[in-house]
C-alpha cells in the first residue's frame, strides 16, 4: 500500500513549488492548450523545434501538484532531445502510468519522472500526471516532428 508520503515525494513537491520552464516563451513553433475536463485543470504549452530537435518546452497553467510537477519535470527532460527520443520517453512514461504500480520506470530514460510511479496506483490522478505529456505529444504531432 502506497502512502501519502511516497506519493508526494519531495522531488514532486519541489517541482510544484519551483516549476521549471513555467512561463510561456514569447515565440514558439507550436502552441497547444489542454484541459482535464474532470477537474478543470489546464495547461498551455509552447514547443520550439529546430528540425527534428526539441529546442525548448515552456508552459503555463493551473493544476494540482501532480500535474504541475510532472509538466515541470517533462519540460526539463525533453529539452535538447530528438523528436523520436522524446516520443520514446513519453511512451515509457505512459506505460508507467498504465501499470497500476507494477512498473517503476527506467531512471536512465525517465530521469526525475520516475518519482511519479506511485501515481499509477491512483487511477483518478493518472490524467493529472499525463496532462502536460499529452499536450507535448499533441504539439509534436502539430509540429510534424512525429507522425
Amino acid at each position, binding site marked *: *500500500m502506497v*502512502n*501519502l508520503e511516497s*506519493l*508526494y515525494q*519531495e522531488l514532486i*513537491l519541489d517541482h*510544484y*513549488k519551483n516549476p521549471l520552464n513555467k512561463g510561456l516563451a514569447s515565440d514558439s513553433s507550436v502552441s497547444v492548450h489542454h484541459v482535464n475536463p*474532470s*477537474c*478543470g*485543470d*489546464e495547461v498551455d504549452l509552447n514547443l520550439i523545434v529546430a528540425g527534428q530537435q526539441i529546442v525548448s518546452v515552456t508552459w503555463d497553467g*493551473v*493544476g*494540482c*501538484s*501532480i*500535474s504541475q510537477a510532472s509538466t515541470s519535470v517533462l519540460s526539463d527532460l525533453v529539452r535538447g532531445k530528438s523528436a523520436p527520443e522524446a516520443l520514446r520517453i513519453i511512451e515509457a512514461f505512459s506505460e508507467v502510468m498504465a501499470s497500476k504500480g507494477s512498473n517503476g520506470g527506467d531512471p536512465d530514460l525517465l530521469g526525475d519522472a520516475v518519482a511519479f510511479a506511485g501515481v499509477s496506483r*491512483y487511477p483518478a*490522478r493518472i490524467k*493529472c500526471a499525463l496532462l502536460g505529456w499529452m499536450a507535448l505529444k499533441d504539439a509534436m504531432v502539430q509540429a510534424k516532428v512525429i507522425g
Partner: protein
Amino acid sequence: MSLDVAKIKRDFPLLSRKVRHDLPLLYLDSGATSQKPIKVIEAESDFYRFHNSAVHRGAHLIAEEATDIYEGARAKIAHFIGAESVDEVIFTKSATESINLLAYSLGQARPNSPVSLKPGDSIVVSELEHHANLIPWQELAKRTGASLRWFPATEDGRLDLREIEQIIDSSTKIVALTHQSNVTGAITPLSSLLDRAKAVGAITVIDACQSVPHFPVDVQKLGIDFLAFSGHKMVGPTGIGLLWGRKSLLEELPPFLFGGSMVTSVSMSDATFAPVPRKFEAGVPNMAGAAGLGAAVDYLQSIGMDAIHNHELSLTEYALAKLQEIEGLTLIGPGESSDRGAVFSFTLDGIHPHDVGQALDDRGIAVRTGHHCAWPLMKKFGITGTTRATFYLYNSLEDVDRLVEGIDETQRFFTSRGL
C-alpha cells in the same frame, strides 16, 4: 440530533466498508450519489428473483406482478412529491434525461402551441446550475433561436435576484432553476421567482436533484410546472430518474423517445401516441430500478423527510461553525445555515483541491473535488475547482469532526513540506 445515526448507518452496507490503510470509510460524497439501504438493494434483487417480467405486456401472472410493482412505485413517488395524479410522474434514466426530455420536447412543440419557442423568446437559468440544467437549455436556445439569460451568483453562492424584473420579462417562456445548488448548498427562494415567472406566463422547471432527497418537496404547494430528480441521490438505485409535470402541459408536449408501449396505433409511415405517462416511456423500462426506487421512498418516509431535514440542519450549523474556524479555509457558499443544505465546498490556501481530496482519501474520507459539473460557477469565483463534502441522513456530528481533523492533517502534511 433527532436521528439515530448509528442505527441508520447499519441499514447501509457500504458504510461499514474499510478503505485505505484499513480505515473505516467516511462517505461524504452523497451529493454525487447516495448510498443504498439493504431494503432498496433487496427490492431490486427480489424483483429479479421473483417477479421479473416485461411490464404492461405479458398476459401472465408474473407480468401482472411486475406491472403492479412498477406502477406501485409510480404511485409512491407521486404521493411523495404531492403530485395531483400518478399520470404526472414519468420514469426516465436520470435527472439529466428528464431535463433533456423536456428541452427536446419543448423544441418540437407545435409552432402555435403555448409551450413552443421562437426567436425573441428567452429562457432563464442561473450561474449556479449544474451542467445538466444548463447545456440542454443552451441547445434548445440554439435550436429555436430563443436567447438564454441567467441570474448571476452572489459572492456567497446564492442567486442574485436584484435584476429579477429585467431577467424574467415578457419574452421569457421558460425559467429553469436549481432548487439547491450542488456546489454551494444554497436553497433557491422559489416563491418570488415563481410569482414573477407566473406573471409573465413562463413555464417553471425545477432541478430538484439536491432538494427532493433532503427536505420535503410538494409540487402542488410550490406551484411549479416541472420537477426533475434522480433516484440514485435519494438512496435509490442507479439508472432511474424522474420527471414530474403538470398533466395539462405533459399532454400538450410531443413525445421524446419513440418505440414500444407509447403508441395507440402504428402504420409503416405513421404513429399515434398514448396518453401520459405512457407517451413518454418508450421501451421496456428500468423495472428493477423502479422497484428499488419505491423501496427508497418507503425508507425515506419511514425516517421522515422533516426529520432528515432537521438532522441536516443541525449538521450544517455544526459544520459551518467548525469549518469557518479553520485558518486558510475559504468556504464557497453561504456562511450561515438558513436556506442552505449540508453541502460544503471549500478551498485551502496553497493546496489544490485534487491534492486535498487525495490526502483526505488517504485518511478514509471520501469527498469530491473539481468543478462539480458547475464550471461557469467556478469561473465566476476565479477558481478551477473546490473540495466538496456533502452530508446525508447517515452522517453524524462526529463525521464533521473527522472531516475537520482530516483537513487539519492535510494542511499540516503539505505545509510541513513547504506548500
